[in-house]
């Protein structure tokens, strides 16, 4: 028979958490419903809205145990026995422990995301690419960076025939990764369009937003719905980067065709291995097959939707 004190302790530990999680679930559902009403092309507003329940859950979690829960307990148990009191104390210690651990996890995630560039360079054994080695490519990169007002990113070459392109870091310390496969198989205009997309990520500070969202997701790891929010934020940023990138280069059709080609290549020969799994969301499109059911966890919108929007926007602006 489990002693009643243990039950009290568990109850005390779990009840506040359950309330926070319930609040976060309701907030998430609410935000997703609001998103249906908001203009689907207003990516900045949509990112903000998606950030709200994440940030809210995080704040609630942080404040609940520190301020609200002890007061609530004091009112409920006027004259607790010594044993109950000890259990409650232990319960609180565990709760504080949870807060501290999730906070540490968030800090670790922040650190990991901050060093993502270095980690990816190491994992893919990417080597610096110098201007004399690829004039045309650097001409495009310079053009796009100057137009965006961003410092020319350090460029690294991934030794792979698979067409990959990615940017990590923020304006000033951005690192652009590009594979041999991309340079040899896309036309110059398509490469430039891809660069536009990547530079737009830097310009929009997407690495910071992604890091923030990821850290908050980790901090609120026990709230199931926060796992929908972070990928949703990434998807909005992708749409925004597509739009801004196309504006920078003036080549939305080329970006669309590049996306279709990359998607086709990835679907014929999907990348295998943990390396690519971990790095999902880093590349311009997802280089492995993803089940339809997993779309909500995918950090990239479907290529069909991206192409549709790119072409729609050019149609209306032309």
């Amino acid at each position, binding site marked *: 028979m489990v002693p009643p004190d243990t039950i009290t302790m568990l109850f005390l530990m779990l009840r506040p958490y359950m309330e926070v999680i319930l609040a976060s679930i309701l907030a998430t559902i609410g935000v997703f419903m609001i998103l249906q009403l908001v203009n689907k092309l207003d990516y900045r507003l949509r990112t903000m809205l998606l950030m709200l329940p994440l940030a809210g859950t995080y704040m609630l979690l942080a404040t609940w145990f520190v301020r609200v829960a002890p007061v609530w307990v004091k009112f409920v148990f006027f004259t607790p026995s010594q044993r109950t009191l000890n259990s409650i104390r232990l319960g609180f210690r565990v709760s504080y422990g949870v807060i501290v651990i999730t906070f540490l996890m968030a800090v670790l995630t922040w650190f990991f995301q901050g060093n993502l560039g270095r980690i990816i360079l190491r994992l893919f054994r990417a080597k610096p690419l110098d201007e004399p080695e690829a004039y*045309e*490519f650097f001409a495009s990169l310079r053009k796009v960076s100057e137009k965006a007002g961003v410092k020319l990113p350090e460029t690294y070459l991934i030794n792979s*025939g698979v*067409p990959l392109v990615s940017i990590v870091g923020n304006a000033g310390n951005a690192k652009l990764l590009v594979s041999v*496969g991309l*340079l*040899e198989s896309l036309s110059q205009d398509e490469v430039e369009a891809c660069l536009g997309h990547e530079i737009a990520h830097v310009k929009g500070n997407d690495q910071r937003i992604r890091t923030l969202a990821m850290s908050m997701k980790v901090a609120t790891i026990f709230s199931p719905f926060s796992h929908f929010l972070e990928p949703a934020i990434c998807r909005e940023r992708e749409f925004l980067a597509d739009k801004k990138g196309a504006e920078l280069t003036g080549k939305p059709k080329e970006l669309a065709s590049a996306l279709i*080609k990359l998607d*086709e*290549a990835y679907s014929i020969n999907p990348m295998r291995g943990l390396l690519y799994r971990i790095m999902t969301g880093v590349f311009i499109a997802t280089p492995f097959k993803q089940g339809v059911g997993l779309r909500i966890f995918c950090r990239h919108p479907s290529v069909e939707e991206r192409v549709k929007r790119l072409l729609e926007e050019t149609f209306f602006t032309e």
Partner: protein
Amino acid sequence: MKLRRVRYEPSKEGLMKVLGDLEADIAEALWRLGPSSVKKIQVEVSKQREVAVTTVATVLDRLYEKGIVERELKKGRGVYYEYRPALTRRQFERSVIGGVLTSLLRTFGDSAISYMLESMELSEEKKAELRRYLERLKEPERRSDDGAP
């Protein structure tokens, strides 16, 4: 040259027994062309089927991982790989046959040997030779079973 990650599927036609549909076409094109860039290979493959350069590049990357093609990184006017077959068509076929035979012998042992000897009409001398060859193919497995090097 040891082939990696090559699977033999007897129900398929031609080279597709061991390579994917597109992989087989691309390998064939590369054997015809000799050392060439991805774009050149794509032009050659396009004569038979419509395929994007990006797809050819991705498939070539996989052929490279399988050890069927070799490549060299070229820099200058652009960055690209020059691909060339790692082994001739004959060598490739031989290594596939070797792989399949070895796996048959290791799985079925003596019954595989006697089947092969029975199914082929050979002189006694040739049969003895073939038996010695097949026994040799079977050997590495036995040795490793005994734990000897």
